[in-house]
């Protein structure tokens, strides 16, 4: 059996391990357009800020590819897939045949057309190891940065640049930073900390023009009319699934590559996993991209097992983010900010002075989301309650307690989790 995986990040790793649990013999080839070994992509801001060295970027033990007998083709861009011939086409003309194909190409940064951007030297996106190195390399030439986008990428880019001593303004369209995960109180606490540390956070605004003569940037003009002087711009608005090379193929691409609960696309034998995939959402049952690191691994694992002939099924994507900025830890998961709050029960505790916020979102008898700022201890217990759809009615009153733990759960659940005769969780 010939397994080909396009992409070399966490979904690919999950898939390789998944395949090998079922099929120790089959050939596995991984094709990556980057020049690095598999790396923890979220670490690029740590690299930028000097918190980790290049050596620590590697996500896997050095012997991983050898131990798992994986052929790794780096610096190889896939330009097309012929699902009839079962071939992957590389830039340069080579074709790679497959029996089972996994597309795990992740996301490409989305760069909208902004007036004045064309021809400017110091406009960057921030999604790869090379992006981090590029910024580090010209760091002496960077003084003041405007980061367009206050989501995960924008905030981490800002953090990295701040560690390099740069002056930063973040411009976010929504009324709060990290708008997909945070609600207003959580966003406010973190924004306040950032401002206290010299990072300007502007919300409900966007960049409409990049100013400057020739290749030099002098600043940006916002929709509100304000002008922010700067010499560098980071575009961190978001990523789009990297599925462009599938144009003309029979693989269904919507916002991402559409897959079923086995991570298989409409084309038998072709799978997708990770940021590029559009799989079932845990809560809505609809399919959407879920660009979340643990979900990518889980999807990759399922794809790998199924490709190798095993049985495994996706229980649906749950968004979860852990982000610590300026010593304020935050963890959010699930439906953290319901669009129609009247259908939910929302419990909150806040002590904004001390950067403490705790929000529990309940629908009927089920926990569906949480936002934690400050006290994030054992937050994973909530993830377990969400995923296992545990009826929280018996301990609803304890959910907000700062020391909420398994002792508040019904005994049967505790037994299942920790007792020697319990079932598995």
């Amino acid at each position: 059996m010939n397994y080909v995986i396009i992409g070399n990040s966490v979904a690919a790793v999950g898939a390789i391990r998944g395949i090998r649990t079922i099929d120790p013999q089959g050939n596995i080839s991984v094709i990556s357009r980057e020049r690095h070994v598999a790396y923890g992509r979220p670490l690029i801001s740590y690299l930028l800020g000097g918190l980790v060295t290049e050596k620590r970027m590697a996500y896997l033990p050095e012997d991983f590819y050898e131990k798992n007998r994986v052929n790794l083709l780096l610096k190889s861009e896939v330009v097309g897939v012929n699902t009839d011939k079962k071939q992957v086409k590389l830039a340069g003309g080579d074709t790679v045949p497959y029996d089972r194909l996994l597309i795990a190409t992740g996301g490409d940064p989305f760069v909208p057309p902004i007036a004045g951007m064309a021809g400017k030297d110091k406009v960057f996106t921030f999604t790869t190891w090379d992006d981090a190195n590029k910024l580090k390399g010209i760091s002496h030439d960077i003084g003041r940065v405007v980061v367009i986008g206050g989501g995960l990428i924008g905030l981490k880019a800002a953090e990295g640049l701040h560690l390099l001593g740069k002056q930063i303004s973040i411009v976010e369209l929504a009324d709060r930073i990290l708008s997909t995960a945070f609600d207003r109180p959580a966003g406010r606490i973190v924004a306040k900390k950032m401002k206290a540390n010299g990072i300007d956070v502007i919300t409900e605004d966007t960049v409409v023009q990049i100013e400057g003569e020739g290749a030099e940037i002098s600043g940006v003009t916002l929709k509100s009319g304000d002008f922010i002087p700067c010499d560098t711009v980071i575009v961190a608005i978001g990523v789009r699934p990297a599925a462009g090379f599938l144009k003309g193929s029979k693989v269904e691409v919507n916002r991402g590559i559409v897959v079923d609960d086995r991570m298989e696309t409409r084309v038998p034998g072709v799978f997708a996993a990770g940021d590029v995939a559009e799989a079932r959402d845990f809560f809505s049952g609809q399919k959407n991209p879920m660009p979340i690191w643990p979900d990518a691994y889980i999807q990759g694992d399922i794809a790998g097992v199924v490709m190798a002939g095993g049985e495994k099924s996706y229980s649906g994507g749950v968004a979860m983010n852990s982000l610590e900025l300026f010593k304020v830890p935050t963890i959010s998961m699930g439906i953290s900010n319901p669009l129609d709050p009247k259908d939910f029960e929302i419990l909150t505790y806040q002590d904004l002075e001390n950067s403490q916020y705790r929000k529990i979102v309940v629908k009927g008898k089920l926990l569906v989301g949480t936002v934690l700022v400050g006290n994030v201890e054992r937050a994973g217990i909530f993830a377990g309650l969400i995923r296992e759809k545990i009826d929280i009615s018996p301990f609803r009153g304890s959910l907000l307690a700062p020391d909420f733990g398994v002792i508040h759960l019904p005994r049967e659940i505790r037994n299942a989790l920790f007792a020697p005769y319990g079932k598995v969780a």
Partner: protein
Amino acid sequence: MKRIYTLEDVCIGCHLCEVACITEHSLSKEPVKAFLHEQFRPISRCTVEELDGGVLSLSTTCRHCDEPDCLRACISGAIQKYDNGVVRTDTEQCVGCWSCVMACPYGAIQRNVTKKKANKCDLCPDRKTPACVDACPNRALVFREGSQK
């Protein structure tokens, strides 16, 4: 593989398991020195929870899951599952992002805020039986074969 299981009915809430864990993971492996004289006192990897002033108590720790949620959430690859089944955190590689804290449904991972590193049971690699199991005066912790997800 052998794992640590909890018998909550016989737990007396004495916290000796936590003391033993801290001592085992200290430099000196002696409780007085570990608690008073060493620069960094380790954080206990097992957690004793109590309710109603101790009427109910139990010690919980990492399950060393077959499919660890922490490993899947770890962004740096610091958490790995070894051939003997133990799920270990490489402290050097850990960047303290707390993704594992977010993912573990057992709440088994602690944050070492001072060092900005994740802290988790390693099944005491230098011992035949984990320190917490040995220390429990009422045998509320057992080390035995079992599966976990």
